[in-house]
């Protein structure tokens, strides 16, 4: 395969996140060349075990994001509970304790906006099921920076508020059922290198 430009996928999900991600993440092969960053709204007191949970069920590597680590392709990075996850322009990760956004820390908007700055038109943002409006502004930033937006079709989502808000805020983004989002993510590297 041709060398890929720096490119990435960011995913945000809230209520119903685990079930939705169980369809998306296990679909990605171990050789998947892109990094995938995921924010799931989790209560602050929960010791997040999302990375462990998904590592057992995915072929692609899965870990909790660590402050200042260098980004590698083929790894799914989960934001830790109670910290925002941000992508730096030098392709390292930062965590932050700053105020919750729309009552959430980690917040999807914070991840999406920083990743939009770092990756520009090679970023794909995915807004999944959820009961808040987090992610809508972030997806807007991704599209404004030339990236792509995918949204779980609200009628297939446990929480419809979040995908609806994203679609309302980003008419350019299209709704898809999860299986199709999985297929699109899988074919993304080929699209980028052509």
């Amino acid at each position, binding site marked *: 395969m041709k060398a890929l*430009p720096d490119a990435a996928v960011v995913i945000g999900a809230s209520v119903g996140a685990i079930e939705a991600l169980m369809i998306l993440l296990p679909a990605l092969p171990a050789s998947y060349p892109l990094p995938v960053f995921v924010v799931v709204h989790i209560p602050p007191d929960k010791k997040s075990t999302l990375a462990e949970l998904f590592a057992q069920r995915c072929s692609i590597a899965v870990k909790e994001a660590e*402050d200042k680590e260098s980004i590698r392709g083929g790894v799914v990075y989960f934001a830790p509970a109670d*910290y925002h996850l941000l*992508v*730096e322009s030098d392709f390292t990760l930062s965590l932050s304790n700053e105020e919750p956004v729309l009552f959430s820390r980690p917040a999807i908007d914070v991840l999406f906006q*920083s990743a*939009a*700055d770092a990756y520009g038109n*090679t970023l794909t943002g995915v807004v999944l099921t959820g009961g808040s409006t987090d992610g809508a502004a972030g997806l807007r930033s991704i599209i404004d920076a*030339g990236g792509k937006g995918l949204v779980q079709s609200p009628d297939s989502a446990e929480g419809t508020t979040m995908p609806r808000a994203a679609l309302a805020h980003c008419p350019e983004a299209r709704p898809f059922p999860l299986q199709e989002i999985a297929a699109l993510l899988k074919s993304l590297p080929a699209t980028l290198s052509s």
Partner: protein
Amino acid sequence: MKSTAAEIEAVELQLLLTAIHEKSRYDFRDYSPASLKRRLLQAKDHFRCASLSELQHRVLHDPGLIPRLLPYLTVQVSELFRDPSYFLTLRRDVLPHLRTYPSLKVWVAGCSSGEELYSMAILFREEGLESRTIFYATDINTEALQKAEAGIYEIDRLALFSENYRRAGGKASLSDYYTAAYGRAKFDQTLKKQTVFSDHSLVSDSVFAEAHLVSCRNVLIYFNRSLQDRAVGLFKDSLVRRGFLGIGAKENLRFSGHADAFMEFNRLERIYQKL
């Protein structure tokens, strides 16, 4: 490929930080840019500027604005006994070591409004080490330092603080340490009698005392790798041999050249011991 707008904003951000550095003693040029940019974009809106460049222009012509930018430049989120298991580990595993010294110095670096300092003071009092200890509580945000000295917190934060205190192995009730009035809780003023509060920057100042325990939590995440390295170097130089360093729950020493000077004392709680 980065968008043109993002590239321009990155340049504007660096110019703004350079202006702040030129016009004050604050140097934020080596902080983690993504979070800093987010917060300065909020400042831009607050001060009704059209762009970071306009904010930079204002800073250059009116340096009096810089103190008002500090709440955006620094993150002041804190709690008493934040991450209770950290304080529980200090109580159970670290203090028994510290007890062997006739006198102790504890440095709380980046103490914000004092939540971490009062947690430490209560812990040392309950373990009978208070009278032999001097605490240094430092920060660059002078307004936060004043709040730390006052030791007054909104009463609605106290339920969380009390729960944290209990989970941190607290021996009494947190309410024994404060008096509540007019919606606020004022902490027992004798808790700070062993404390020196001072304005000290991990970016530009040097080591000022020998310490047996340094607690610097949720400060390093706002620094880039080279600044983290500088800060950890200061902690190393400040600590006595076998002294302890505690950092935030999601911080690490991996990217510091000084990591080799420490051994992991408690990996999960991010407590290190100087070799």
